[in-house]
């Protein structure tokens, strides 16, 4: 039986790796998730036959509890995952990721409490958790516990921030110093667990790690959230891998470490796309104090345009580049924009979509949203491919985007966005910005693009503005 279960885990691990591999190409991506899903079902079913579980004293109660927990947790996740809008995907990923981290931390807690009980009743004189578990298992178990717990509470905060439930970027004065102290104390307790058998130490350690996760995530600026979520994703993978070692489970080790390393690389790619180092993300809060300072830099008047005129401008353009941002998705305007694109194409206008690496809330998020509306991916261009093309563009239509076209990222070294690569919409002949109001973007930084001579503002809700544009273009 044991061999059979191990074989099932091995097959599952192979399916995960092959599945992830297929997910890295748009052609096979769908098959990839199906394979990985099959691996998960196989591993879960095999685990029910595990002798460790079947030989337990409370086998019937425990199995019942397992089934209830899977039904509740899985049922809730199924329901919420089916219901969530595409725009809210990033925070959902953060939430599910946090759950995984929490599960890894809870596994470690069970093992540590078990060892602590055994140590307390041990007659041979070995009395620490390390004696009971062995040094390697104890160290990796505790490491997994601290990483998993931070990922758990941190992901919950990331979810709350992206979901608009939490707007604070500061809890305490000198947050970074307090975080550093808290981290040191938490690590101190982690080391202490190794050398003691006290339940209290374990409890205090978990509480500290929970608070640490919260404190680390709260100061992170909204624009940096994708990096954090990706990082927590990698950390959860690592924690799962470590707990896999504790339990002697090869599938957990392989899957966890694969995600850990893939996630770390993905985090670096994202941070690079935003021209920020991962350390920078943690130790600088964009859009808090700095935004106010640079706010008065942009003097001038925004020039308004009516949909009618904007429509004329676009109908007679040779090339229109649409720069969609998260605001477009929130307004559910992507379908209207696609309709507008089709009409313009019929009129002989070349239409392209320009996607900033961090458009939306995550790299690739905007591509998902446009794909949902039916935009074929050969019309969508990455930043590097389109930037030189703005000089040949008659109209750049910015809808719901702001920070990604902010030229102060290039010119103003005092801007918090300074250094972030941007889409050079400012180079095109005309810029039309569809925007709900005169406010600043997600990072809270003023955008000088809106005040330049060739920029016209089309104020209004994204979907309504797009409908008016369609109307205007059709009438010509």
């Amino acid at each position: 039986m044991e061999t059979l279960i191990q074989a099932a885990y091995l097959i599952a691990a192979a399916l995960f790796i092959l599945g992830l591999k297929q997910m890295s190409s748009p052609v096979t991506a769908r098959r990839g998730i199906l394979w990985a899903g099959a691996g998960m079902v196989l591993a879960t079913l095999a685990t029910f036959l595990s002798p460790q579980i079947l030989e337990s004293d409370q086998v019937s109660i425990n199995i019942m509890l397992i089934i209830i927990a899977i039904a509740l947790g899985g049922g809730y996740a199924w329901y919420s995952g089916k219901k969530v809008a595409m725009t809210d995907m990033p925070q959902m990923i953060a939430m599910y990721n946090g759950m995984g981290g929490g599960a890894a931390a809870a596994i470690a807690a069970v093992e540590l409490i078990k060892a602590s009980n055994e140590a307390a009743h041990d007659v041979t004189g070995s009395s620490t958790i390390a004696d009971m578990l062995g040094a390697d298992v104890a160290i990796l178990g505790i490491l997994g516990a601290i990483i998993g717990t931070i990922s758990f509470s941190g992901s919950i905060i990331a979810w709350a921030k992206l979901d608009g439930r939490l707007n604070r970027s500061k809890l305490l004065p000198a947050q970074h110093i307090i975080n550093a102290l808290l981290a040191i104390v938490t690590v101190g307790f982690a080391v202490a667990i190794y050398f003691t058998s006290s339940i209290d130490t374990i409890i205090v350690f978990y509480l500290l790690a929970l608070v640490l996760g919260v404190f680390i995530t709260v100061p992170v600026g909204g624009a940096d959230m994708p990096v954090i979520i990706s990082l927590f994703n990698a950390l959860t993978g690592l924690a799962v891998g470590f707990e896999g070692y504790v339990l002697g489970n090869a599938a957990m080790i392989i899957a966890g470490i694969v995600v850990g390393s893939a996630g770390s690389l993905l985090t670096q790619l994202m941070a690079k796309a935003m021209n920020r180092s991962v350390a920078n993300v943690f130790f600088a809060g964009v859009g808090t104090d700095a935004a106010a300072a640079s706010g008065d830099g942009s003097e001038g008047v925004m020039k308004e345009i009516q949909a009618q005129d904007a429509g004329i401008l676009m109908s007679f353009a040779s090339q229109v580049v649409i720069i969609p941002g998260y605001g477009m998705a929130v307004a559910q305007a992507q379908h209207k924009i696609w309709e507008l694109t089709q009409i313009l194409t019929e009129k002989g206008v070349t239409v392209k979509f320009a996607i900033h690496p961090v458009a939306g809330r995550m790299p690739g998020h905007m591509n998902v949203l446009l794909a949902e509306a039916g935009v074929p991916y050969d019309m969508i261009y990455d930043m590097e491919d389109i930037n030189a093309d703005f000089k040949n563009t008659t109209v750049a239509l910015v809808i719901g985007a702001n920070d990604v076209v902010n030229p102060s990222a290039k010119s103003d070294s005092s801007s918090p966005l300074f250094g972030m690569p941007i889409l050079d919409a400012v180079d095109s002949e005309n810029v039309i910005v569809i925007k709900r109001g005169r406010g600043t973007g997600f990072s809270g930084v003023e955008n000088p693009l809106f005040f330049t001579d060739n920029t016209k503002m089309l104020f209004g809700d994204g979907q309504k503005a797009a409908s008016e544009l369609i109307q205007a273009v059709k009438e010509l």
Partner: protein
Amino acid sequence: MIEGLAAIYIFMLAGFTGYEIISKVPVILHTPLMSGSNFVHGIVLVGAMVALGIAETTAEQVIGFIAVLLGAGNAVGGYVVTERMLEMFRPSEKKTEGEGS
């Protein structure tokens, strides 16, 4: 059980594998892939089931229960959202001659 040097080999090889998988991914798939890898570490469910399965005291059962609850949420939720996202990546019917850009 996997111990000592064998474990280190597994850690190392798995690490390289993850790196290899990600290093050639187009930007358009970053979000689905992050979601997909989020699903894969839902394998923690298996460990959580073992942790609850070997629980003896009530405290262990409660924590184990939480572990399975969260693990199942990770696995199922990760699958559902990834599947929904990837469902949209179908090649356009009109222009299938190349993936362009």
